């Protein structure tokens, strides 16, 4: 007479319980909903601040770069890169922006340039190119009509 396969049944139930955990994770989560869209306006603003995608480029690797607005550092990187991208937000209610740019290149780099491109939500993009050798401390000015 065959014995009741208690050991095998136990293994199967145990493994079924292990399978249950990831299945619950996949099917049991409530649907993630994006935030309600902000009210329509000529520029997409959060309060007085307009979200802005910023690209910083240089033909030679930057050793460091920092952006400042209204005396406050708003972005800093010490990653050796020829291209950096960051999401920031600015008050563009006056259709004008000044950004302080502090940048360094590696010692021995030739004269180089740094281009700062701003793409504010719902507004035309603007770019400014500044030149420096090994270090740069300057102001980039952007205006919109």
């Amino acid at each position, binding site marked *: 007479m065959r014995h009741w396969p208690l050991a095998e049944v136990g293994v*199967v139930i145990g493994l079924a319980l292990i399978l249950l*955990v*990831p299945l619950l994770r996949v099917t049991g989560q409530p649907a993630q909903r*994006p935030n309600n869209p902000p009210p329509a306006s000529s520029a997409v603003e959060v309060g007085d601040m307009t979200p802005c995608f910023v690209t910083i480029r240089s033909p030679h690797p930057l050793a460091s770069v920092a952006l400042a607005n209204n005396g406050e550092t708003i972005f800093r990187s010490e990653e050796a890169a020829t291209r950096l991208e960051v999401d920031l937000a600015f008050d563009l209610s006056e259709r004008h922006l000044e950004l302080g740019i502090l940048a360094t290149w590696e010692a021995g780099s030739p004269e180089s340039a740094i281009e700062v491109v701003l*793409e504010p*939500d719902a507004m035309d*993009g603007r770019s400014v190119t500044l030149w420096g050798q090994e270090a740069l401390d300057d102001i980039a000015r952007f205006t919109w009509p």
Partner: protein
Amino acid sequence: MSRFLFLLIALGALATSSVAAPIEVTALHPILGDLAREVGGDQVVVRDLLAKGSDPHGFTPTATDLASLKQSKVVLASGKGLESYLPKVRAATQGRVVEVGRRIPSITVSAESPLFLCCPKHAQGAIDPHWWHSPKNMGRAARVVADAFAEADPSGKADYRRRAQNVAKRMSALDKFTQKQVAAIPMRDRKLVTAHLAFGYFCKDYGFKAIGLQGLTPQQKPTAKDLAEAVATVKKEKIRVAFPEHLANPQMLQSLARETGLKFGRPLLADNLSAEVSTYEAMMRHNVDVIVSGYQGVK
């Protein structure tokens, strides 16, 4: 017994791996659907609500269409007023709609704008919804789509961003290609006569001035006064070629051609992709080829 055990353990390991299911996306326009597939890769399943070759200006979703939106985690709309039915979509999806064009800079139709040589009065002051006719805008749109996908699926954020950057690079290359192609047309000849005002963003990027007989949609009819003004402008500016569109009735342009002697180029794709031209990039290259060869044909 040991083989059976091994099989069960292997199945368990497979199930515990953390591969997320693709997110369901509905695009209200095939150009957005194309963009969504490029940015989402195999992490999204995209459905186009509007078929290729259909007119988005005249489209109204059925009750079945609206009900089918409930299963989508992300709904991508073009925005800028293109989809007059958007409130119904918002209600059906409880607000889960991303208006991609909202974050793109707008063009307003205005007789005072250097972009427009003449335009029907009923289009004055309206926002041009055809933002996709600029590869630069599509590069920005790729980021908007990536952000929308990342909000629905935070674990895929890096992948969506990386693919959006790749799209932006391709759009930059497409922009440069277009600049080089249209350089064959002298600036004084860059006046684009089309059935409706669908190419404002193209005109802005590439130094053209737009004349669209029918306003912002192909359904709008010009008045006799609008037609007379268009005839006067074509004659004054010495324009020699006009471009019909795949989805627009050519009758209005034919009336203009009878009065002015305009020749016709091949049809442009203004509002949608087609079965033969099924991606955004192919659409832009098709339109650039049509415009450049149209002008060269009347030199």
